[in-house]
């Protein structure tokens, strides 16, 4: 009896803490996590396609640059890159501002936390996306590229009409993986003070001393986000590869 009443009590405390107390902030946290992930994915897509193009180039120097990019940013701990961008960025901005005399000698210009965070996570995401795009490009049937040349298409037309649609089609499953990685990486930018889900859960846990509750809830929310993305990418894959599936 005592056990049940204590359980009930705990449940009502949890209810109070989540719904009345931190619920709205946790929802905001989810919003920020998705925002950080989306913006990082976009930054990563731009960088990733450039790096993939460099790695596929026939110019040795460009290939070297591309290789170095993916080696470095896949080989370093994510947290280190984030520190480098956030604290390193702050140091650079402060240095520049001080040397131009626009701030006093003891003032500091902070790296904007959202910007520093998405740049760092975007650059890491770009390294993984570059591999995905490169693999997709190599999977395009060579003859189709040759046909595009034989029909007088310029490099730009070949890219727009033949390469890009096929790379996107082939890249969808791989991008689904990168999206999951990027959601998880976004938790690391809590160190820069962006109020995404991880930081919110952290704050809630510390101020209420209910670590178990809040980290479990945050864990469930991350799992929901990553698992919802699986069927969405599956559906996208079915759509983009419709020319290869049996017709209905």
């Amino acid at each position, binding site marked *: 009896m005592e056990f049940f009443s204590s359980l009930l009590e705990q449940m009502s405390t949890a209810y109070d803490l989540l719904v009345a107390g931190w619920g709205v902030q946790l929802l905001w946290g989810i919003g920020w996590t998705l925002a950080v992930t989306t913006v990082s994915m976009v930054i990563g897509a731009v960088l990733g396609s450039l790096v993939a193009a460099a790695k596929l180039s026939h110019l040795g120097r460009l290939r070297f640059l591309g290789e170095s990019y993916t080696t470095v940013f896949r080989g370093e701990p994510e947290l280190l890159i984030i520190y480098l961008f956030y604290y390193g960025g702050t140091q650079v901005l402060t240095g520049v501002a001080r040397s131009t005399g626009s701030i006093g000698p003891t003032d500091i210009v902070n790296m904007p936390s959202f910007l520093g965070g998405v740049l760092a996570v975007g650059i890491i995401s770009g390294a993984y996306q570059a591999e995905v795009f490169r693999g997709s490009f190599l999977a395009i049937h060579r*003859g189709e590229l040759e046909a595009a040349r*034989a*029909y*007088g*298409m*310029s490099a730009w*037309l070949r890219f727009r009409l033949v390469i890009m649609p096929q790379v996107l089609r082939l890249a969808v499953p791989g991008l689904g993986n990168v999206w999951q990685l990027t959601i998880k990486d976004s938790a690391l930018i809590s160190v820069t003070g962006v109020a995404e889900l991880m930081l919110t859960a952290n704050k809630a846990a510390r101020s209420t001393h209910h670590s178990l509750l809040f980290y479990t809830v945050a864990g469930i929310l991350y799992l929901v986000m990553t698992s919802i993305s699986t069927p969405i990418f599956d559906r996208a894959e079915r759509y983009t590869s419709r*020319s290869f599936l*049996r*017709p209905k």
Partner: protein
Amino acid sequence: MSASLAAAANVEPSPEATPAISVKEMRKCFGDHEVLKGISLEAHKGDVISILGSSGSGKSTLLRCINLLETPDSGEVRVGGELIRMKPGQGGHQTPADIRQVERIRADLAMVFQSFNLWSHMTVLENLVAAPVHVLKRPRAECLEQAEALLKRVGIWERRNYYPPHMSGGQQQRAAIARALAMNPKVMLFDEPTSALDPELVGEVLRVMRSLAEEGRTMLVVTHEMGFARDVSSKVMFLHKGEVDSLGEPKEMFARPPTQQFKQFITNFNK
């Protein structure tokens, strides 16, 4: 196809007429191996030239050097009298001087490939309008109308909204021929168009090619189809080890092979 059209295709052009395509002294090496050893070739409007040869004789390379899918090491290509300008490039090899010119000329030389090479993410209809709309800058509606007519002609109009991987090889190759026709090309290049097909599908593709020959299209056809070479083409060119071994009237060539090499080649084929 009407008899008058077929007859018109066989009329000898006047000597001063500009050839639709002319190749002079074309050479091409892959590494140490010289694949083309100074090949010359002329096709006038309405000519159907079958290019024969055993594998490794350089026949596909010749075709691919004409539209610059491969860059010839030396030699001249003229299309409708216009010289494709080349310039010296890296390592003593030449490269096209003006890629725009090459792209413009390629659009006049529609190619049909052994493995069809239709764009697999586009429907058949989209395959037919992509280059006319984007390369030739013709109005989309007009291109669609022409594309549907061409698909009716090659007998796969019902498949116009299919994606290429959903069709048989014969249907894909007929779609590819329709894609070539949609460019209103000056010359059509066929690179072993029936070699990748199951034997029972070869006939449907050959029938389409025969009808093109009969309406007076200018065609260069790299092929192993002896029947097509003998009965449909206006000239047969036999390549052996990168050189023109023999060239002539198909009936004549097959009745009295001019060289030992060609004789052996057709005997091996009839075995």
